[in-house]
């Protein structure tokens, strides 16, 4: 699959401060790529370099096989971007704003403007001045603006910022629709981990300007061991049985009442049936057994902790 975005040794320094450090990103065609990182990690600076707003101190950027910033104009014909908070001419209407940006893209089409306004749910407010819009409405207009050039790549910097829960859901659905129906590659920067987990197929995690992990979401979340919580009657008996199983590691327990409670264990997934049988054979009453899935949030904080310890 072709790389839509590829950065090699991308670095940005402001004076002595290194904001982006030797960053190698790969975004493939069709990806919904989640770009994660804590505040100040270098996400926005990376996005600004990808869109040609900021010049790299060193390293290379290739967007759809072309050099950024050398072929900036060519690249931006096929890229829609919403960088940080959406900014518009407040004294103009939503339609006038989109008309301006559409003309500057060299692709003015009144029907297309109507279509993108409809997609983001602003058609009924198309002729209202932007100064009368709420933050959420401006955010939607920002996404509409990013969709104007009928892009092959959409770069969205925290697009659900300031949206209400319904608005957030709508934007996530829109991103999924763009990727699946319109075959648009999406580069999504967000600090909302569950959002990235719900929407993205691949993620890159950046911390202190460095990429600490990159890969398929499913791949990154797949673990060799699984945490399982077992609700049992007979905690003492359970511990005795589990202590005999070498591949089981008890993580903790909580007592509900008397000898009843929940015990957390870490166990290789393929051993879970044997463990269940051993518990039953040992006379343990199992009320429930459920896996505690690793979330992107767990992975994110784990990686940040590792990076902190390494640094």
């Amino acid at each position: 699959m072709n790389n839509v975005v590829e950065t090699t040794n991308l670095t940005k320094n402001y004076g002595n401060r290194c904001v982006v450090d030797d960053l190698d990103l790969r975004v493939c065609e069709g990806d919904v790529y989640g770009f994660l990182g804590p505040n100040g990690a270098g996400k926005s600076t990376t996005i600004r370099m990808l869109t040609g707003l900021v010049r790299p101190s060193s390293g290379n950027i290739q967007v759809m096989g072309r050099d950024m910033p050398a072929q900036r104009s060519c690249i931006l014909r096929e890229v829609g971007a919403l960088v940080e908070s959406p900014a518009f001419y407040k004294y103009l209407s939503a339609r006038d704003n989109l008309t301006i940006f559409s003309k500057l893209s060299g692709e003015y089409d009144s029907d297309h403007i109507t279509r993108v306004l409809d997609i983001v749910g602003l058609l009924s407010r198309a002729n209202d001045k932007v100064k009368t819009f709420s933050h959420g409405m401006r955010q939607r207009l920002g996404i509409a603006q990013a969709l104007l050039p009928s892009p092959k790549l959409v770069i969205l910097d925290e697009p659900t910022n300031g949206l209400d829960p319904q608005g957030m859901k709508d934007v996530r659905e829109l991103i999924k629709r763009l990727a699946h129906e319109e075959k648009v590659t999406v580069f999504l920067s967000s600090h909302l981990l569950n959002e990235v987990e719900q929407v993205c197929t691949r993620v890159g995690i950046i911390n202190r300007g460095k990429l600490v992990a990159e890969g398929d979401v499913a791949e990154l979340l797949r673990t060799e061991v699984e945490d399982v919580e077992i609700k049992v009657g007979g905690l003492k008996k359970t511990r005795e049985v589990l202590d005999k199983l070498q591949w089981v590691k008890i993580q903790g327990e909580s007592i509900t009442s008397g000898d009843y409670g929940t015990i957390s264990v870490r166990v290789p997934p393929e051993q879970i049936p044997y463990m269940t049988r051993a518990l039953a054979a040992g006379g343990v009453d199992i009320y429930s057994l459920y896996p505690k899935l690793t979330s992107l949030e767990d992975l994110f904080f784990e990686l940040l902790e590792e990076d902190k310890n390494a640094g």
Partner: protein
Amino acid sequence: MLVELQTEFFKLAKKPRTYIGPSALMCLLALIIVAIKYGHEFQYMQERLARDFIISGSFANAAFLTRYVLLPPVLLMFLPLFSSMVFGDLLAAEAADGTLRTLLCRPVTRIGIAVSKYLLGVFYVLTLTLGLGIAAYLLGAVFLGRGSLLSFFGGIWIIPEKAAILRLFEVYALVALGMVSTGSIAFAISTFLSNSNGAVGGAVGFITISAIIGGIEFFSSIKPYLLTTYLLSVDRLFTDKLDTALYLKSAEVFAVYAVVALIIGLIIFQKKDVLA
């Protein structure tokens, strides 16, 4: 470039702030007309002149009003300030509002955006300055009457009405070019400050310092290169014949300042990181 220019004109026409400047200038003209028509100062001057000369009509007419507007308070403060505000706002206001970021995420060249904005500023300031002259003459003709231009510079000069109209046009055109130079300095400063107030302050500061330096004997060797030397020489263009050498030299200095400031601004804008 044409598309960029079209969109800039579209924004200019729709922006409420566009109409504040002309309105302020119209108010200024109205106040000057009232002062000329009803002020004791001008009546006293008329009486004083009548003691030594035979004056038919009033010297305080349309031509006088149009020339009066170009005296230092307006010429050295109001117009440069206004011009700096217009040019300083072109890029800096968009940078501060974040719209520059949205604009530069489109397939446009930075030079295209900057030059189209600069040309818009040139158009606006030329229109405003020349419009001020035309409005002054027309309003003066209605409220004060027409006639020859009585000019005081190293004596008293009487320029016949038709010659006065041509002279006023020539001088206003030169002043408009001077305002473009002043604005260009604000434009250049705004490209690296991303702050319109700083750009306006910088340009006005530049004009003020130039005016002060020009008055100090020690700096007499650089006086011929100062913008203010020529802005302050406008008076000398209202004698019986136009001082062509001074006129051309003034135009040359204004043009050089404008071009150099534009080039510096474009170089900075082309290289700068858009962080706002």
